[in-house]
């Protein structure tokens, strides 16, 4: 086992809804080497967000264990070794771009000279140099999302979590953000788990696409994406990519119909 190995072992999660137990995740297992990019895809209510929250240590499994490099998510929290970005940025509206990117260090309670440089570097990397003092309210949706990505990466996390990071953006902007994210990620390939609704986004970014099925949430199939990096956007128009996309969609569709 190499450091940074992601191991999800027989994880189940039950919720108590009006006194009845609702099974949101049923014995989910998944393994991935360090530095892999995993996309979770599936219908609403398939438990992909629940799984992401448990990876973040924001929720605990009812059964099973989650280990990242042999450590629990809670331990990673304490070490400041996690990073997360949400769909609509979730920035602190009263903090400037610079202060938002710095936020993880404020909570962790450290701010070395290297950290300070890292904040500036991240802002430059996501292309927001010159906007350090702007408030989130003064930025466009795409720019806000860049701030969120910078914030998620600034503490050099061991595990990066993305919850539909570009879900609120239009198709064009989403694609160019996908390309930028890939560039950032290739500079330092951190183990990443991304929840998404978009099949082509999953194929473009991920090494493994995990197709989940609902009620209760299970892993339907894990598909290895064969394309070399760095992937160009034109990849999305290739026949192989179209083929893979159709396959994944078919998987999701079949299950929906079984269900109905």
């Amino acid at each position, binding site marked *: 086992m190499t450091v940074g190995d992601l191991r999800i072992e027989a994880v189940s999660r039950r919720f*108590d809804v009006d*006194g009845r137990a609702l099974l949101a995740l049923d014995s989910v297992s998944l393994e991935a080497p360090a530095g892999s990019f995993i996309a979770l895809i599936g219908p609403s209510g398939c438990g992909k967000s629940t799984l992401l*929250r448990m990876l*973040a*240590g*924001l929720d605990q499994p009812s059964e099973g264990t989650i280990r990242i490099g042999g450590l629990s998510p809670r331990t990673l*929290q*304490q*070490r*400041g070794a*996690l*990073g*997360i970005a*949400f769909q609509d940025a*979730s920035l*602190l*509206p*009263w903090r400037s771009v610079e202060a938002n990117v710095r*936020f*993880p260090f*404020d*909570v*962790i309670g450290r701010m070395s000279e290297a950290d300070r440089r890292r904040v500036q570097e991240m802002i430059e990397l996501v292309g927001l140099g010159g906007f350090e003092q702007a*408030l989130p*309210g003064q930025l466009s949706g795409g720019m806000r999302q860049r701030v969120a990505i910078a*914030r998620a990466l600034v*503490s050099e996390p061991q595990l990066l979590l993305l919850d539909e990071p570009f879900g609120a953006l239009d198709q064009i902007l989403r694609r160019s953000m996908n390309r930028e994210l890939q560039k950032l990620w290739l500079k330092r390939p951190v183990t990443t788990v991304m929840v998404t609704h978009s099949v082509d986004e999953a194929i473009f970014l991920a090494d493994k696409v995990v197709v989940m099925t609902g009620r209760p949430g299970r892993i339907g199939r894990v598909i290895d994406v064969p394309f070399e990096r760095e992937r160009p956007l034109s990849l999305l128009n290739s026949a192989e990519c179209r083929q893979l996309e159709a396959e994944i969609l078919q998987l999701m569709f079949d299950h929906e119909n079984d269900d109905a």
Partner: protein
Amino acid sequence: MRDRRQRTTIAIGWLALLLLWEVAGRLHWVADGALPSPSGVLRQLVEDWGDYPPHIWATVRTSLIGFLVGNAVAVLCGFLMASWRPVGRLLSGINVTLFAMPPIALTPILVIAFDGDAPRIVLAALATYYPTMVATVLGLTRIDSRLLDVVRLYGGGRWAALRWVRLRHALPTLLAGLRVAAPNAVLGSLLAEFGSGSGAGLGHYLIGSLGRGDPERLWGIGLVATAISALFYVAILLVARCWVGAQAPAQESLGSQGDAARGAGTQWLITLVAVVLPLLAWWAAVWGLEQAGVSSFVLRTPADLAAELFSSTRPESLASIIGGALLETLPWCLAGMALGLGFALLLAILGTLSPVLERVLMPLSLLSQSMPLVALTPLIVLIFGRDGATILAITISVTFFPAYVTLAQGMALVPEATQDCVRVLGGSRLKQVRLVSLPWSLPYLCAAARLVAPRAFLGVMIAEWLATGTGIGNLLNVARGSLDYGLVWAVVVAAVLVSVLLYLMVTVIEQRVLKRFAMTPVQ
């Protein structure tokens, strides 16, 4: 360009209104000169200016101290409620009482129990408490839960969440609450002077001048009181602008925070304590006053009062005196409230049909939020005389503005797309209102009713006290003069209780109605 033209139209509208007022005043159109001309009011104000400073100072001083004390308590309670949910449930009885309580009802007891500035400060503080408390709780709890997730993700606990997110997030909402609380403090201070003999203070000055029937002076005092109130309001607005900039007050929370599941037994216990706590607070207050040297002759605990209520040592039992007075008061209260709400609804509808009307009315209504409107009722007495018309006029005037603001906001929130559904089918504006706007703003109508119910009761009581000499308002005034302390306490408690019940009744109706249409109440 169009914007400027509209602004000119509105300015002309305001100017025309002022001109009409001037003419009406000069020619004594209204109630034989009870409505003086603006220029006459200003002239009188300049003439009397020498008398004003001590009154202004007394009002500003007492309302400011009360404002500070009340807010300190409110922020502390709000903080506890936000940090530990059961506290909110336990304090709900006290909170509802403080919201629904007509401030003037406490005046007689405060005047008996305290000297000097204290009654005014206490009433100002009590009037301040509710809006600030609510704002504190909302600001600290209605947070996009993902902001808190980010803190937890980096290993931050409750303290880090408070320090980095909750406190700063609460600030704009808190300041908005303080803005509502500020005019309330001035109102509390003024109302405490209504029943406390003579002295310095604009409330005293107003009551003292009422007998002389000098409309110009009464209007001048009203103007000054409003100016103080508006000054408070604007000061906080400016602080908010500088401090929190363009950040909007708390948005609706995304993840709902469901109540932790508890046994039915615990629920009942919490409710019981919530109901008993206000009584305990009363008991504690009486005990505290006794310790402070106030004669127990003038004080009554809940037990004392319960015994006295049906005691046969009086020619007429307290219960029957108060019952009779309430029977006189309540019909007026309900009628005034219905008329105020109806009037507000009508104008809100007209406002959606004619945007210009709304642009003229809305600033006026918002302005009225900074006015100690209830305290200005002597002016209405002057215009409408001393009969039922005055009661109605006062009750409508204190209920109309807040109801209108709530309703107009609700109608402005009707989604364009829903209105378009009527438009594309060729429906008229009127049809849009009937089929979409009206049903859509039902929760806002309910919220408006809930908001104005206690105000209507307060309005009727003040009208009865100052003008008609009937009902529970009059009893409040008479009892104090007759030194019948048992009666004073009974009237005060009855007034508070009725107001709370009125509020709860509207709340229950609201829940029933909204549940039927699967709608949620507006905060």
